[in-house]
């Protein structure tokens, strides 16, 4: 996947997680929602690792390079979301 596809995948997974989280807040005993939450957070962990590797740090705690790349990777308003 290219940078844009990796970003889109991460946005889709984070959207799925956000929906599961809000639903679980008001339905904390829903087994179905909890297993969906576990499924999408598992996919998200892999997607975020790949994103950090290819696109640069997602957060200021994800910088892995020899140089401080947090300041260089584009800000979300500078490129396609």
């Amino acid at each position, binding site marked *: 996947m290219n940078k844009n596809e990796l*970003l*889109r995948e*991460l*946005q889709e997974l*984070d*959207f799925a997680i*956000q*929906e599961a*989280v*809000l*639903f679980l*807040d*008001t*339905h*904390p005993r829903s087994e179905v929602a909890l297993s969906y939450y576990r499924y999408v957070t598992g996919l998200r962990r892999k997607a975020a690792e790949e994103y950090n590797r290819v696109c*640069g*740090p*997602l*957060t*200021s*705690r994800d910088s892995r390079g020899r140089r401080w790349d947090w300041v260089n*990777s584009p*800000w*979300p*308003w500078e*490129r*396609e*979301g």
Partner: protein
Amino acid sequence: MWIYEKKLQYPVNIQKPDPAMAKLIITQLGGSDGEKGASDRYLNQRYAMPYPEIRALLTDIGTEEMAHEEMIATMVYQLLKGCSAQQIKAANAADYYVDHTAGVYPQGANGMPYTTAYIQSKGDPITDLSEDLAAEQKARTTYENLMRLAKDPEVYGPLLFLRQREIVHFQRFGEALDFVRKDLDCRNFYRYNPAFDR
């Protein structure tokens, strides 16, 4: 605390500047029913909320509202980007330009700066959740009003996404209000304030 993720919740990629539309859309950042008011409202209401499920909900929705502020600010930035002073004036946005150039300033469509007078944090779960339900509906109406004016699909798409979030949040706050009512004396919800009276 919060940790910033260097991405938007939903893609915003507006190629065609439109200062007139920027001046209208900014109302969902700093206007009376905008996203800044939403996040301020929910994140401040959390402290007096006596139910852990609803403390979580206010935290998670309040946090999502901050991501919506960023989307709206991005739309305003991209709609103003690359315009000359003359182009901005021709779009009837010179009043915004003289105060803020092409910067992003949280204000309403009427030019009123953002104020916490738009929100309430009453320290009563029924009152606060009723306020939150109304806030989500007011924001939905505002998005629909903007969508009727948005011709460009690159502007319309993010507005459509944000409008849908208002509906989901309304649903979740409604469930929270039901939860509070079931917990209280069903013959008189108002007998005492579970956030204050012991």
